[in-house]
């Protein structure tokens, strides 16, 4: 192929009730072919019950160079986790 087909991201739900998770990417000329290719590439070992595909260009990603300002400030703010409450013993499943 001289001209590459566009890239698509594949999301697969492995079981009903679970969320779709990113499984990988593949090439296809349109959404329909992307679905079929995803079926063959990512679900042939019985991995899924539902597939989403989206063309990669439609995904806006954060820039790794901005990781400092985006994510590092959260590292020392443990108080944002609700871990400072004393839970009565009677409460389960928290």
């Amino acid at each position, binding site marked *: *192929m001289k001209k590459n*087909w566009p890239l698509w991201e594949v999301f697969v739900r492995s079981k009903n009730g679970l969320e779709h998770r990113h499984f990988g990417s*593949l*090439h*296809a*000329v349109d959404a*329909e*072919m992307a679905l*079929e*290719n995803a*079926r*063959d*590439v990512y679900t*042939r070992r019985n991995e899924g019950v539902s597939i989403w595909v989206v063309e990669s260009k439609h995904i806006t990603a954060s820039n790794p160079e901005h990781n400092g300002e985006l994510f590092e400030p959260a590292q020392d703010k443990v108080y944002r986790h609700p871990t400072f409450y004393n839970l009565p013993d009677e409460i389960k499943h928290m």
Partner: protein
Amino acid sequence: MKEQLYKYILGIADNSLILGQRMGELCGHGPSLETDIACTNISLDLFGQVRSYYQYAAKIAGDNRTEDDIAMLRKEREYVNVLLVEQPNTDFAYIMARHFLFDMYHYMFLQELQKSQDLTLSAIATKSIKEVSYHLRFSSDWIKRLGDGTEESHSRIKNSIDDLWTYTDELFHLTDADKVMVNEGVGVDVTKLKDTYYTKVSEILQEATLEVPESKYFQKGGKQGIHTEHLGYLLAELQYMQRAYPNMEW
């Protein structure tokens, strides 16, 4: 009766074995990673079906024959697949045209085989038809994409449909074993599928902006074991390991 049933099963299974081998040849050679995996998946679907048929045939034969003997150790003349499925992988358009022309038949055939009085055959048909329905979807899709694609893809798929058309009529011939099995309520009367087949194939071709070939000259012989020169080479590769190292397993 037993012998006819055995022959009848091979008549179904050999098509899938030979086409499966053709699709398997694409492993690592498909036009893109995605189509490569798709074609080898299809190949494995077909081999899975073949195993069920040959296991059943081995049971019917009732001697020491195994499914592997039936698959690997017959001579060329003893394979009764249609000529269509043994045609070589000339280019991707040929591969898809061959597959499409067979899939349409295969799907319609399995629909009828599900109604067979023979419970094993009807169970295999019910299991296989889901796979084959995907094969048909995949190949029909490609016929439309290539036909309605670029000038080059259009001319390639047109040539392959024109060339392979001559092998389609044989799909609807009844062998002696077929006739016996149809009478027993076990086999499918494929002659009854013919009109619908050509109508459905024509619909897809038209959607793909392709003309339906008008040629009325058809090739036959595969069902009687008279094959084109391509089958010998295919079998040489398929059988090599069992011939060179008899009874080898892995």
